[in-house]
């Protein structure tokens, strides 16, 4: 008996018991849909984290004032401004360092015409945009000359620009920051969410010197809030960290045994942790979904066992008219497999639909790859073969005479 005919027989048998077939299939559908949905959500989370990491720029260090661990009485990190422009310039000259970006931050009210908007104002040097790998979309960045002359120039993030200007083109217009007029030089390309979930596009950037002298004011001129440093390459990250620590200890006159008054944080290490966490979450979601697939598989086995018992006489008749054990085995195995494959197909469609619904409803990133669909499907088929095999073997092992006598 050819395989095609056996498939036909399997389909016919399943059609005869539509409700039962449907309910059994439902277990499979839910299992496969859950696997696809969970993998899509997990993969989406990973993608979000990865995007946030790449949006930070590559091979980056954060150097912040204060210590994160030490003895008795301490101030929190950043409470004391121990880092200076001089530190940033000195670090920039280290061989393993490509560039540094000293940063001061604050919040201010911005006005343009009748519109106003409160956002974070960041004082940076022109290198900042290179370190962050953040180009302008229109207009231009400010220059070293603007920095030296403390020019009143501002670069707007996408969100801020649209909040202040709406449809208007801001480049060349004047906005007021804390009542001081600033010329809008450029609009930055969109960057998206950062690792901590802030929208990086809701920000404006002004020359560091302008910020220090005219916007924020500062009791210690020349100090900065924190800085970013970019290593020459991923290979020299460790070397760069050692060099920066040594240099800053030297510049800050910290003797042996004394605690650092700054902290160097490797962003790659932070990123690795975040990526790891996302991966674990993704795996866990997949594992939980797999359980429902397993339960669906057990349901199939259960129903197939009932079906074999119910159809014992049919099996006997088939054996009497010439079915060999393989034909019986194949028939029952195929019935289980057909349930799985049809259930798998519907499940994949439902899973993709569910993932889409989640992305719409919860504003989450979901990612569906061919690989995960294939995986869920292969898993479903494997479940079908695994759980269909025992009942099928039981059917094939029946003795013809006993099967025929069965009432």
């Amino acid at each position, binding site marked *: 008996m050819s395989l095609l005919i056996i498939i036909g027989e399997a389909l016919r048998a399943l059609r005869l018991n539509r409700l039962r077939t449907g309910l059994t299939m439902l277990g499979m559908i839910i299992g496969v849909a859950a696997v696809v949905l969970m993998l899509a959500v997990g993969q989406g989370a990973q993608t979000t984290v990865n995007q946030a990491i790449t949006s930070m720029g590559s091979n980056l260090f954060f150097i912040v004032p204060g210590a994160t661990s030490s003895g008795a009485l301490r101030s929190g990190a950043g409470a004391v401004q121990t880092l200076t422009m001089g530190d940033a310039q000195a670090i920039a000259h280290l061989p393993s360092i490509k560039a540094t970006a000293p940063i001061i931050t604050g919040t201010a009210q911005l006005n343009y015409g009748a519109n106003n908007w409160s956002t974070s104002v960041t004082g940076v040097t022109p290198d900042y945009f290179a370190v962050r790998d953040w180009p302008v979309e229109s207009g231009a960045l400010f220059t070293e000359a603007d920095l030296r002359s403390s020019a009143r120039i501002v670069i707007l993030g996408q969100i801020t620009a649209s909040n202040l200007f709406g449809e208007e083109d801001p480049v060349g217009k004047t906005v007021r920051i804390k009542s001081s007029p600033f010329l809008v030089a450029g609009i930055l390309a969109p960057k998206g969410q950062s690792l901590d979930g802030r929208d990086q596009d809701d920000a404006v950037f002004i020359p560091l010197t302008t910020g220090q002298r005219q916007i924020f004011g500062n009791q210690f001129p020349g100090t900065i809030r924190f800085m970013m440093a970019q290593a020459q390459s991923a290979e020299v990250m460790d070397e760069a960290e050692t060099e920066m620590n040594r240099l800053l200890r030297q510049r800050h006159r910290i003797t042996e045994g004394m605690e650092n008054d700054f902290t160097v944080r490797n962003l790659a290490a932070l990123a690795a942790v975040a990526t790891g966490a996302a991966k674990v979450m993704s795996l866990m979601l997949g594992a939980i979904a797999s359980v429902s697939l397993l339960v669906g598989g057990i349901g199939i086995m259960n129903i197939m066992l009932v079906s074999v018992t119910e159809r014992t006489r049919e099996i006997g008749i088939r054996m009497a008219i010439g079915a060999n054990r393989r*034909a019986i085995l194949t028939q029952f195995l195929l019935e289980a497999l057909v349930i799985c494959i049809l259930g798998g197909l519907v499940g994949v469609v439902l899973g993709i639909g569910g993932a889409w619904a989640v992305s719409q409803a919860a504003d989450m990133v979901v990612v569906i790859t061919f690989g995960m669909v294939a995986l869920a499907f292969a898993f479903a088929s494997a479940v079908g073969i695994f759980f269909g095999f025992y009942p099928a073997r039981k059917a094939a092992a029946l003795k013809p005479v006993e099967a025929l006598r069965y009432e």
Partner: protein
Amino acid sequence: MNSPQVSDHPLIRVEDLCKIYSLESGNKQGGGTVNSQVLYDVNLAIHRGEFVAVMGHSGSGKSTLMNILGCLDTPTSGHYWLDGRDIASLSDDELAQVRNRNIGFVFQGFNLLKRMTALDNVATPLLYAGVSRAASRKRALELLKQTGLGKFAAYQPNQLSGGQQQRVAISRALVNNPQLILADEPTGNLDTQTSREIMAVFQQLNQEQGITIVLVTHEDDIAAFTRRLVRLQDGRVVHDGRVPA
């Protein structure tokens, strides 16, 4: 009555056939197995073209003998050659093939596959023999037409009368051109008139096509359609010869 050619080499040869059923005792205290012997040293030779009735009271072992002859069951001891082949030497797959190609079964309860058309029921043995679906159906339809059921091809068994179902079963038994038809009380569920019609079909198959037929019955007037009577009693052959008139 013109008699068909009877060959010298037996189609069925059975020597010292014994069948013992071992039943697990359900008694938890007693345990062990209970043996019950159903066939004692049965010797039998049936030649090609014969039409044999096997008779006996219930429990005489006639159904067990038929199951063994039909390769549905295996003897505990003794030998069975079908067309010169020692059945004991055959594998499960080969036995399935023998049932498929060499033997046609007709049962008391018809044993048609439910919710399947008469046509597909008749065609199924051909499918197991590896014939394509289209060719199987064509051959099945021919047979149904021969038994006068052509217009019932698309009916399912539960839509047919007992006699019609048995004709479908006979068509199914014939579909692979077997040398041997084993009929286990084929008229047991039929009224007298239909029984006669069915027996006439068997008689015709035996006389016109020379098909060997072994038929189990406990009715004398059914046995009267055959030409040789084997009577079993308590698992032993107690009579083998002409059918008493």
